[in-house]
């Protein structure tokens, strides 16, 4: 259980760090590559999780260049480890963080950035003091969707996680396991806890969001 939330938290934080620059780039670039990058980012939305899981398994495994690189040069294994799950979840939940933030940025009037430029502000100053504070609901949406999506992830985790207790056995896998073993009671315990916790988190977030919107 703890593992599930640890995975979701780490994934969300990493995606926040990666997602904001990526969303900023996509929102404002006029490059011809934009549709290509947007497609790549959106792929996890439509791709069956097992497909992604399979390719990640191939990429991560020690037989392949990337997997070997990680093991030999960076010192950690990607298959059947928590780190591998994190990487898989980051890839898989990418659009859930990037798209809301990108949409939020694109909905801001262009004159805000221009006004800040006229006042001599640099791009980072504009991003952190003008843009991000004005898309708080989008940031919140991104965080919540990413977190919830990672908690619910099953297909990818199954492929590259391996169901190792304490390491890669997240709640969604555990539930599946218990059902397979006909331990419906245990399965129900896990499922119920998961349901209640995610429900409470989402509820809290929507309440906070609403009071923020009222203020603005």
């Amino acid at each position, binding site marked *: 259980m703890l593992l599930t939330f640890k995975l979701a938290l780490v994934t969300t934080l990493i995606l926040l760090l990666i997602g904001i620059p990526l969303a900023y780039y996509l929102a404002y670039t006029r490059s011809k590559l934009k549709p290509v990058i947007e497609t790549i980012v959106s792929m996890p939305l439509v791709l069956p999780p097992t497909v992604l899981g399979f390719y990640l398994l191939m990429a991560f495994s020690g037989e392949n260049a990337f997997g070997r690189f990680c093991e030999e040069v960076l010192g950690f294994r990607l298959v059947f480890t928590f780190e591998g799950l994190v990487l898989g979840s980051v890839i898989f939940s990418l659009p859930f963080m990037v798209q809301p933030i990108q949409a939020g940025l694109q909905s801001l*009037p262009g004159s*805000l950035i*221009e*006004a800040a*430029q006229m006042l*001599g*502000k640099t791009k980072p100053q504009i991003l952190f003091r*003008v843009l991000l504070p004005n898309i708080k609901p989008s940031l919140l949406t991104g965080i919540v969707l990413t977190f919830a999506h990672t908690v619910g992830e099953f297909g990818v985790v199954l492929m590259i996680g391996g169901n190792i207790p304490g390491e890669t056995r997240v709640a969604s896998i555990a539930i599946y396991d218990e059902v397979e073993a006909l331990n419906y009671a245990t399965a129900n315990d896990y499922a119920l806890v998961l349901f209640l916790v995610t429900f409470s988190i989402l509820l809290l977030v929507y309440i906070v969001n609403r009071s923020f919107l009222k203020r603005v």
Partner: protein
Amino acid sequence: MQLSVELSLNRGEFVSIFGESGVGKTTILRVLAGLCEPDEGYIEVDGKTWFDSKKGVNLPPQKRGIGFVFQDYALFPNMTVEENLRFALKKGESEEVVDELMDLVELRALAKRLPSELSGGQRQRVAVARALVQRPSLLLLDEPLSALDHTMRSKLQEELSKLHERFSLTTLLVSHDPSEIFRLCSRVVRIEQGRVVKDGTPSELFIKERIGSSFKFVGEVLEIDRCDMLYTLTVAVGGQIVKVVASKSEREGLRVGSRIQIVSKSFNPMILKIDS
């Protein structure tokens, strides 16, 4: 449509760019501000080259030190009035100028309000104040008063005039309102079809005939009523609705929605003072 403009401003002038919508007025401001790059051209300010397409010089807007007031004011929604002004300060700069400006444009009472809690006229004042925090030498205004009602416009026109004097600004104002230009500007540049067609004082541009000739109004016909041998036209002129009498020949070809010009001798009109 190609925009091709050659223009020079003198320090301390209050100049207006005048013309119809879409003719390129805002683009001229944006090019000067560095928000828009012309295909070809040259901008020099106080001996310094800001833009030169031949030499590849393009000073970014952040470094041009211009005050710019946008048509939608562009106030930062997440900051209060005071914070919006403080944001304009450079690192380490004293906050005195913020206090001074807030008093000058009478914003002190609104200091802690967010832009969403302000009226149009209040927002406009914040936008102008914010543009002046860095004490720019050049102030660009993009139709700043177009969204306001008549009384507020007059009041703010006076404020702009005072600020222009007080801060020894060189101001460039985009406007389509002749009376506003008359009130504020010493020089008007008229743009048509992407080119400068006239450059002179407001009198030279707007007063075409000798004093005492005629009033000319453009209006739209709302209603045509017949009354014996004559017709009564109900016309919308500016913000007013008037009734004028028209002869059969004058009425010819007119229908509801027609645009007409009403010309009246202005030699002996009634002049009434409005108490302020």
